[in-house]
């Protein structure tokens, strides 16, 4: 792992230089969209991939963040930077309010509670017409001066995505992350060894809410117009699929999953038509064939192709010494 900092530097340089080699603006937009998704998925990964709580309703939080940004920055003219922060804070609070009752529930119940939450958010955005524009939707203002070009927007979103990646990576490799993995694998054992199960789950859930809110604001900026139809349940499923396909308990895997799953349907037209069918098929294939996710496949491949160390541990029998030892033993007796 000596060359890891080098690899990270190269990837970062490539990402920063993306506006020059991406070619057209559409691809740049796509890259920015991937980064915005990743801001959400990075946080969600801690919930789904590490602590094993299957939240399929994060699209609700995304919608709240997006509407919060649109209402604050658009209708009330608040500075967009503050609006992004406010979106994050509001969604963190929503994560807390959603998590407090529902994280106590076991697996399927929790998944259904988050699904219901996503549906409720859609319902409320439709019902509160004078605030959210109802079914017509809201237009979203752009970002201020240094970030108002496509490049600037991309760089800002990239920076936030990198920040989120760094945060989640820090959590994942320290005591906290280990505790979460313990909660995922066996909540009872985790409790027995002193992991504060509920608090750990709640903390990462609130964190994921926060990132979802920020992601919502960035997503709204990229979309430039939002309606309740933007935030259909399928989008929540998409986030979820990215993580499962990438692999639970990894960070690189879900990142690759996000990139591939966002870009592939855009690049290959027939897949875009199939849309959710494709995602469902992929999810089913991964669950049945490699439940650990694609990341695990890469790991296995790397392990397979890595040059094996010479077998230096073979112990040669020292026959002379053995013979002597036996001789001595006999003479003593």
């Amino acid at each position, binding site marked *: 792992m000596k060359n890891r900092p080098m690899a990270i530097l190269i990837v970062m340089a490539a990402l920063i230089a993306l506006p020059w080699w991406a070619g057209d603006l559409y691809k740049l937009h796509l890259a920015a969209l991937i980064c915005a998704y990743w801001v959400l998925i990075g946080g969600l990964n801690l919930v789904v991939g590490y602590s*094993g709580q*299957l939240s*399929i309703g994060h699209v609700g939080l995304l919608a709240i963040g997006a509407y919060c940004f649109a209402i604050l920055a658009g209708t009330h003219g608040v500075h967009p930077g503050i609006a992004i922060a406010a979106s994050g804070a509001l969604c963190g609070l929503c994560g807390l309010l959603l998590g407090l*009752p*529902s994280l106590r*529930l076991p*697996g*399927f*119940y929790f*998944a*259904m*509670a988050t*699904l*219901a*939450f996503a*549906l*409720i958010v859609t*319902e*409320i955005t*439709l*019902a509160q017409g004078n605030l959210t524009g109802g079914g017509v939707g809201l237009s979203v203002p752009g970002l201020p001066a240094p970030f108002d070009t496509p490049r600037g927007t991309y760089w800002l979103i990239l920076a936030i995505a990198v920040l989120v990646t760094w945060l989640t990576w820090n959590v994942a490799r320290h005591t906290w992350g280990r505790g979460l993995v313990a909660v995922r694998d066996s*909540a*009872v054992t985790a409790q027995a060894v002193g992991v504060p199960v509920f608090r750990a789950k709640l903390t990462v859930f609130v964190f994921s809410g926060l990132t979802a809110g920020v992601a919502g604001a960035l997503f709204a900026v990229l979309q430039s117009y939002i309606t309740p139809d933007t935030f259909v*349940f399928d989008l929540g*499923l998409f986030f979820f699929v990215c993580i*499962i396909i990438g692999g639970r308990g990894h960070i690189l895997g879900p990142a690759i999953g996000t990139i591939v799953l966002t870009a592939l349907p855009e690049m290959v037209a027939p897949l875009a038509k*199939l*849309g*959710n*069918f494709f*995602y*469902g*098929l992929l*999810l*089913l294939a991964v*669950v*049945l064939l490699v*439940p650990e996710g694609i990341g695990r496949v890469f790991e296995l491949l790397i392990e397979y192709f890595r040059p094996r160390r010479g077998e230096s541990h073979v112990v040669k029998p020292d026959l002379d010494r053995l013979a002597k030892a036996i001789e001595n033993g006999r003479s003593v007796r």
Partner: protein
Amino acid sequence: MFVALVTGLATGALYAAAALTYNVMFSTSKVLSVTTGHISMLGGIFGAWFISTLGWPVPIALLGSMVVGAAFGLLTDLIAIRRVLARSDEHLWLLSTLALATMVQQAAGLWWGTEPKPFPRLIPQDFSAGLGDQKYWLPIAIAILLAVALEAFYRRTLYGKLFVAMSEDAFAARARGIPTGRIRSMSYVIAGAMGGLAGFAAGQLTFAYFALGLALTLNGFIALAVGGLGSNLGALVGGAALGILSAVATYFVGGEYQQTISVGLLMIVLLLKPAGLFGSQSVRPI
């Protein structure tokens, strides 16, 4: 007001039927399949297709819907349940059934179209029948019929008793020589036929609509959780309560907050009585 109550009761009966379907599958496999609502969705869509497009008579179309549902139930077991349970990793069944449900919903959307289409009249009746309209009492009758038939099946027949034995303790049942894999497949086939029947009977109420599955999965689950997992009486009561509550709330508050209210009911019940109204308390984490 009275119309609201009857509508609520009919919708609630559909939720109750979905909850019963959950129960049948849960009893043998301890799996709450996300595809539950989608079975009824298929029943509704195929029923409408059989009658309207292919021109089949109603009884044969009903049979066809049940066969489609049963086939889908078997497919769920074959694809999404069997291998996952064999691997015995927690939660994975949630992912596999979710994946299957998504695929079926999308396939139905592509084939049938994404607009709700009307479901034909099953019994010749005037549209001015009001509250006596078949679209209200058909789902109610079917839900009660299903619950009664299930109870009779569990109590009177040998296979029903095998189901009960498996739901009590699958390992012990296996040790006694019960072919647990085959019984589980059978329960999925039965659940599929039940779901198809319910979707067919409620077709006039819900229309043949591809996105019905997810809403039904959620609301059926709420009905089940309120009534208590594993209890058929609980499923009926939970479904009726959920349907009536949302209908009354719609009457007084307006239709915008239907989902919010049903989820609120779920949360209240789960916080006050986690096992549900008629459920048995058997939480043992170790």
